[in-house]
């Protein structure tokens, strides 16, 4: 939607009342992706939304967003990720960002949850296909979605929420029981 058309439509909706569109309104409609060279604090909504789609809030435990997955990713990518993987991830995130802007005129974070899930499911399929194509190759490069998913899983299950709510955490067990009964709905130990 072009800016002029958008303003015309507003006029139509509001019956000719003069309305100065706010920045936020403009952004939601003419979302412009940014080309990242690194992850920064401004990417947190994007990363949180991706993380939350990969590990969502469920009845038993909050999801990756509440576990501050975006913050975790920024630190881990900066400090703990080999440069070639950083590049793959950034390229992938830029591509995804552009795709959302082009196709949905929106950032990933502002999409409806079902749409976000659809996109992430597609990425998972792409990553599986990518993996199959790489089979047998000497030097294999990961799909960026696998890097992103790996970060989400690692970050979530080492977070306080992931350890204590999604799983069971006992910092000082005090004893070892070699055999206890287990039912399918019982959670696994966090550590």
């Amino acid at each position, binding site marked *: 939607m072009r800016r002029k058309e958008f303003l015309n439509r507003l006029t139509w909706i509001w019956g000719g009342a003069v309305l100065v569109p706010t920045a936020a309104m403009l952004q939601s409609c003419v979302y412009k992706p940014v080309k990242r060279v690194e992850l920064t604090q401004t990417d947190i909504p994007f990363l949180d939304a991706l993380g939350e*789609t*990969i*590990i*969502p809030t*469920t009845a038993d*435990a909050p*999801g990756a967003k509440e576990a501050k997955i975006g913050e*975790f990713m920024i*630190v*881990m990518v900066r*400090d*703990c*990720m*080999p*440069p070639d993987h950083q590049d793959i991830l950034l390229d992938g995130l830029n591509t995804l960002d552009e795709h959302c802007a082009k196709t949905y005129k929106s950032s990933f974070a502002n999409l409806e949850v079902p749409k976000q*899930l659809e996109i*992430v*499911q597609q*990425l*998972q399929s792409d990553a*599986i296909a990518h993996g199959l194509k790489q089979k047998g190759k000497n030097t294999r490069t990961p799909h960026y979605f696998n890097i992103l*998913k790996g970060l989400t*899983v*690692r*970050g979530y*299950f*080492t*977070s*306080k929420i992931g*350890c204590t709510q*999604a*799983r069971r*955490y*006992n*910092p*000082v*067990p*005090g*004893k*070892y*029981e*070699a*055999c*206890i*009964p*287990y*039912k*399918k709905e*019982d*959670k*696994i*130990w*966090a*550590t």
Partner: protein
Amino acid sequence: MNDTFKTKNINLNTKGIADHTYDAIVIGSGISGGWAAKELCEKGLKTLILERGRMVEHIKDYPTAMMNPWDFEHRNTLTQKIKEENPIASRCYAFEEATQHFFVKDKEHPYTQTKPFDWIRGYQVGGKSLLWARWTQRWSDLDFEANAKEGIAIDWPIRYKDIAPWYSYVEKFAGISGNRDGLAQIPDGEFLPPMEMNCMEKYMKQALDSHYDNRHLVISRTANLSVKHLGRGPCQYRSLCKRGCPFGGYFSSNSATLPAAEKTGNLTIRPFSVVQSIIYDENTQKASGVRVVDTNTKETTEFYAKIVFVNGSTINSTLLLLNSTSKRFPDGFGNDSGELGHNLMDHNYNARVAGDYEGFEDQYYSGRRPTGTYLARFRNFGKDKQAKFKRGYAYACGGSRGALWLPAQTKVGKPLKEDLTQLGPWTFSMTGMGECLPYHDNKVSLSKNQTDDWGMPILNIDAEYKENESAMIKDAVHTGLEMLEKAGLKNVRDTSENRNIGLNIHEMGTARMGRDPKTSVLNGNNQVWGAQNVFVTDGSCMTSSGCQNPSLTYMALTARAANFVVEELKKSSI
């Protein structure tokens, strides 16, 4: 008396010498140095420990011990920077964000390598006893007789009967949990109650017993306290031992031997003290003391004692001995044989296999047992004879259950979260722990022109696994896969590694014990040939490597040597 000593002696006034004189000096405070200090102090000797690293006080200096996973900036992951700066140390399984302060960084003490050798070090009071894996099977005559029977290297000067009482002695103090299994290749000891096997492990034990008559799976004897012992522990089943244990749940110098030594009032610990050389006195034909460089001030001082225990860990003890030259010992202290620095061994842990089990879905465990199960050696033992290799291997084994990682690989959203919070199948994994033979050309040597920050020559390591080790590892993989298949496990897989020699952190052999001064550096009491008041009781004294984890044997040899020296002092024969 050598020239340096004479000059120094003139410059020191009598009071200065007295201040620097002890009954005994122990070089190093790790697992064997701690024992030497405890034994000597308890027998009434004023003892000085010289430790090259910083002080680490039990509990107070374990900064990460009570931290949760989310308390670490990088959730206990090493940063790229740390990995790049420490290619050697970061290959060690125990080097983590939570433990890195107990490891020597690669840049802090460089060495050169003719072939890749990963030298893992912990320079602090307590040394690597803070970090060790705590497995403590005894050796048997299968090990002590092997060299002589096979004509390899030289004979051990001792047999099991010589060390057995000392195994008992150190086990009683250290606190070793274990079961009396009645296996000749890992003799029973003085055990605290054993930790229990889980259902997967019990199943494997039974399966192996039903398919073979020589494959015995037992709970590993381990220096973790299953019950409170001498005021320490018990183990709280956190399995965070390598961060240092605030409950004193496992044996370390810091938790056990050093406090015992301190209690006598006879102990002095001097950290930041690199021993450069042992001073040889030609008049008495003994060591008169040691020369020390202070790592903070770079000042050199001397300390004197009637006896010296060298416990700097295998390679550093050897470096010190090689650097201690005199007219009497031009090629290194006690090196009449030319064997000092040679015969470097490690173990080979590259053989790894695993399999999944369909069953016991309704069973799980609670608590994190800090040990595993041990499949005792069966190769070239009893009726088993192998044509392709000598000696044998044991397996470190464990049964465990993790999340549903495999199906989770293709999922996102709620189904992914469910897979990762629910239990997957039981897995049983096995790591072959292979003995390495002593080869004269696996060696360490000193640079002639380069020195490190403390004026010590730069050390070069030239060692490799050879044919016997490779053939053994091949068999350990093949045999491991076969056992898992016979036991009915699924998805049986070879997960072998390709670790450099050194990375199993069982370096030993470079100042070996023997019966003849022409072929060994130490006698049967760990006494240096030609300097009877110097004892070397860390891993460098080992004449062969066995396939058991070696620390318990170092402890026993140390206590035995300390007892010997005190008896000799009483007779005034040292």
